[in-house]
C-alpha cells in the first residue's frame, strides 16, 4: 500500500476548512462549526482524525454528521477518516455564536435566550421572554418543553398566532 502522507498534503487548518461548512441536517442554516459539534482535527500520515461531540446523546443527526464528514473528506482525496466521539466537556448552547443565533432567528427558530446555568431544576417556566421569530412579539407562551427535535421546545405566539420552535438551553 502506498503511504498516504496526509500530513504533507494538508494542514489541520485546511482540513478544518473543508469541514466547517457542513450543515446541520435538521437546521441547514447553521454549520457543525457554528453549532460547536466539530471539536478538533488531527492530520497524521495515514489518517485524519476528526473529533466531534454530540448535542444530545440520542440525536439522530450525529450519524448524518459522521457520514457527511467522511464523504466531504473523500472529495478531497482523504480515504481514511476516523471519527472520534467525545463527551467531555459536555455540549452546551453557550458555545453558539451570535451569528449562528441570528441565522436561527432568520430561519424561524427562536435562539437560546438564557445561559445554560440559569435554570432551576424544578418548575422552571423557561426563559422569561422568548421573542417570536416571525413578528418579533414578546407575547409568547411555552406549549411544551419538547419539540420537533431533541434540541427544541415548542412555543406559540399570542399576537401572530403562529407556533414556533425554540432552541432550548442546555
Amino acid at each position, binding site marked *: 500500500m502506498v503511504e498516504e502522507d496526509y500530513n504533507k498534503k494538508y494542514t489541520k487548518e485546511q482540513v478544518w476548512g473543508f469541514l466547517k461548512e457542513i450543515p446541520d441536517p435538521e437546521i441547514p442554516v447553521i454549520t457543525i462549526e457554528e453549532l460547536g459539534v466539530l471539536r478538533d482535527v488531527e492530520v497524521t500520515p495515514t489518517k485524519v482524525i476528526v473529533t466531534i461531540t454530540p448535542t444530545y*446523546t440520542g440525536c439522530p443527526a450525529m450519524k448524518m454528521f459522521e457520514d457527511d464528514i467522511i464523504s466531504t473528506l473523500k472529495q478531497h482525496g482523504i480515504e481514511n477518516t476516523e471519527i472520534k466521539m467525545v*463527551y467531555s466537556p459536555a455540549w452546551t448552547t453557550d458555545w453558539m455564536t451570535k451569528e449562528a443565533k441570528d441565522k436561527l432567528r432568520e430561519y424561524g427558530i427562536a435562539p437560546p435566550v438564557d445561559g445554560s446555568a440559569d435554570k432551576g*431544576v424544578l418548575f*422552571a417556566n423557561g426563559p422569561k421572554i422568548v421573542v417570536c421569530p416571525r413578528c418579533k412579539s414578546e407575547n409568547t407562551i411555552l406549549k*411544551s*418543553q419538547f419539540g420537533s427535535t431533541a434540541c427544541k421546545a415548542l412555543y406559540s405566539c399570542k399576537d401572530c398566532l403562529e407556533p414556533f420552535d425554540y432552541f432550548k438551553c442546555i
Partner: protein
Amino acid sequence: MTTNEALINYCLRLGDSSLILGQRMSEWCSNGPILEEDIAMTNVALDLIGQSRTMLTYAGKLEGKGRTEDDLAYRREEREFYNTLLSERPNGHFGDTVTRNFLHSAFFYHLFQALKNSKDEMIAAHAAKSIKEVTYHLRHSSEWLVRLGDGTEESHNKVQESLNDMWEFTGDLFEMNEVDEILIKEGIAVDLTEVKKEWEKIINQVIERATLSKPEECYMQSGRLNAMHSEYLGHLIAEMQFLQRAYPEAQW
C-alpha cells in the same frame, strides 16, 4: 471480583436502566394523550436510548470480547439485564407513566450529579452530559405530577394510586453490593445512601406541591443487583429484540 468486572457491571446497570426506560417511553409513540405529549415522551425516549448507547458501548469495550452496544441490547437474555425494577414497570395510564418517570428521573438526576465527580473519566463525562437531558425529564414529569395531583378529584385519586403502586419498587434503586463496594473505594461509584437523601428531598417537595400523600413504609421489592426481574421485562425485551432475533445481523 476484579475492578474491571465491577466496572462492566456498573456500566450495564446505568446503560440498561436507560435502555429499558427508553424502550418503555417509545411505546407511547403515536399513543400519547395529546400531540405535544406524544412528542415529549418520544423525545425522552430518544434521550434515554442515547444515554444507554454510551454506557453499553463502554461496557462492551471494557469487556474486551468485541461485543457492541447492539450485541448487548439485542442479544442478552432477561437474566443478564441489570436495569432498575422501576424502569420496567408498564406504562399503564398517563398518570402511571408520569409517576414512574418522576421517581426515576429524580433518581437519575441525583445519581448523575454525584457521578460527575467519578474518577472514571467516561462515567464522569456521561454523567455531566446526561444530567442536562435528565433535568428536562425531571421537570417534565414533576410538572405533570403537580398538574394531575392538584387537578380534579379524579386525576388526584388516580395519580395517588399510581404513586402507591410504584412505591415498592423504589427501594431497589438504592440497593448496593460488592460491585458498589469495590468501585466506591476506587472513587468511581457513589454511595447510594447519599443519593437517596437528596432523592427524598425532591420527592417530598413535589409530592407536597402536588397535594399528594407520601406512601407509607412498605415491603420493598428487590432484584436489580442479581438481574432478577418482574414478569414485565421478558415481554418488553421480546418486543425490543424481535428483529435481531428473527433476522440476526440485520442492518439498516
